[in-house]
């Protein structure tokens, strides 16, 4: 019998710790498939963040570091400088990357560190129980923004991809979403491209993935996918912000 579909070797057998309907599982799988398809699993070293994906080190079937809140890009820098020939990636949520670790992500891009960052943006703090993130939309309710995010009080949601794309050392910046099969396919393509850019030694690459948090959004999984499409994509437009120029 022909095998037409099977579990990727990029993931371990450990069951995910994510809530039902959360799209972290899809994103993990995409990253893992890319690592397998690019034949990187034997060499790659990953860095997990703090937040819902804190246990990513148990799920990816490769060498992994667990980093402190926001520090994954610095940890990845240390790894990459020791192993310039190994692919290195960080997997980070929006609290981790866009709040406590803003300095680290900006400077890893600024140095043109040859690593790949998978940035999962679900517009809320998940693991700590639904507090406001820098990416929380205006009017969106969170436990620390019980009346909805007020831009006058806490600013507008931060657009990390747009900001990072202005930095010379960032050579690949793309925002994708995992709310539909078509978008999931595009997301995988972007993730793969980001790793390929790293392998070419061109600089820093980041893929921002718009993701859902049914538990803390207080929505069903299906409602969450719709909410993402109706609310997040208009504010966080999908698309490529930066790509290396194709060789002629």
């Amino acid at each position, binding site marked *: 019998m022909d095998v037409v579909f099977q579990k990727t070797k990029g993931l371990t057998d450990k069951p995910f710790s994510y809530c039902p309907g959360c799209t972290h599982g899809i994103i993990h799988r995409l990253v893992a498939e890319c690592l397998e398809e690019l034949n990187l699993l034997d060499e790659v070293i990953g860095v997990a963040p703090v937040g819902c994906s804190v246990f990513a080190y148990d799920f990816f079937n490769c*060498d992994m570091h667990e980093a402190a809140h926001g520090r994954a890009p610095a940890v990845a820098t240390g790894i990459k400088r020791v192993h310039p020939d190994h692919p290195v990636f960080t997997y980070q949520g929006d609290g981790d990357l866009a709040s406590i670790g803003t300095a680290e992500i900006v400077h890893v891009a600024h140095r043109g560190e040859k690593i790949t960052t998978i940035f999962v943006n679900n517009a809320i703090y998940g693991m700590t129980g639904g507090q406001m993130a820098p990416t929380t939309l205006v009017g969106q309710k969170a436990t620390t923004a019980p009346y909805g995010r007020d831009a006058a009080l806490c600013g507008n949601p931060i657009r990390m991809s747009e900001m990072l794309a202005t930095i010379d050392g960032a050579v690949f910046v793309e925002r994708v979403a995992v709310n539909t099969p078509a978008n999931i396919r595009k997301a995988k393509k972007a993730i793969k491209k980001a790793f390929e850019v790293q392998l070419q030694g061109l600089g820093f690459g980041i893929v921002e993935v718009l993701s859902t948090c049914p538990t803390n959004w207080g929505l069903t999984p299906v409602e969450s996918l719709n909410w993402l499409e109706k609310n997040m994509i208009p504010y966080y437009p999908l698309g490529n912000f930066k790509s290396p120029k194709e060789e002629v």
Partner: protein
Amino acid sequence: MAKVLMKGNEAIGAAAIKAGCKYFFGYPITPQNEVPEYMARELPKVGGVFVQAESEVAAINMVYGAAGCGARVMTSSSSPGIALKQEGISYIAGAELPCVIVNIMRGGPGLGSIQPAQSDYYQSTRGGGNGDYYHPVYAPASIQETVDLMQEAFDVADKYRTPVMVLGDGMIGQMMEPVEFFEREPLKVEKPWATNGTKGKRKPNIINSLFIDPQVLEEHNHHLEEKFALMKKNEVRVETFNTEEAEVVCVAYGTTARIVKNAIEICKKDGIEVGLIRPITLWPFPEAAFEEVSEKTKAYLTVEMSLGQMIDDVKISVEGKRPVEFYGRCGGMIPTPKGVAEKIKSILGRA
């Protein structure tokens, strides 16, 4: 090898490279800037890497990443910078990674000053970061000793999979002395836990300090505790001088110990015998050096460039057998031999 005249901070860099350090991540802060400057200049020549991080927080996390790969790696900073690094040091201790951290102390709290001080004793010897942990702290009193202890620091770090701190004050960093580098093979330690890619030959290695199950974390804490006990047993370093004849035994480390040695000379001329216990490791603290107290000894005198921090460890070690007095200058002021000698005389009622 002939002696060379070197500034303390540069000697630290040179000794680290001789000890096999290939990676340095740091951020400028006075009075330790010659360490990163030296590393930026010299590491590329030996195939090593220097990165100036965007902050002390990033620097120590770069150290964490490189240490997890099994590299000999180091950072250096000064008091407020070390305060920022404490988060990372706690993670490194939790994940059991070897690295060397140099702290060239300045006065505090806050921005304080850039002058020499010893007011980070608590910060250095009590973990400093969150959680139950300790790490060895070496407190050299000369540039030669600093050079000798750098190699020791890297070896002990590898041996126990622990961060190790070399603690000097601004004086150690900034003054120049002749030093000799003795050739010594770095301790070779296998690092099967390092993340170097599985090569398809082993299960993934994970560098981690998260143990979400309290029972598992308690086990990990006890495992670390066993390691701390082993370091306490094997890694204590201390210099004692004239403790059997002394009427007063001074306790001082680093630069202060040298000042105390001059005070001892002054007292000797006045017919007063003074001894010295100089902890070379502040953690583990040389408690055993206090076990045998001479009948002649009337009191201990702790001398520090702080308001008195090591004095707690001295009191614990003395166990109430003698009074423990204190003399200190702080804020970047340096005790004088005369000032210490006067304190000794006043303790003996001979001022």
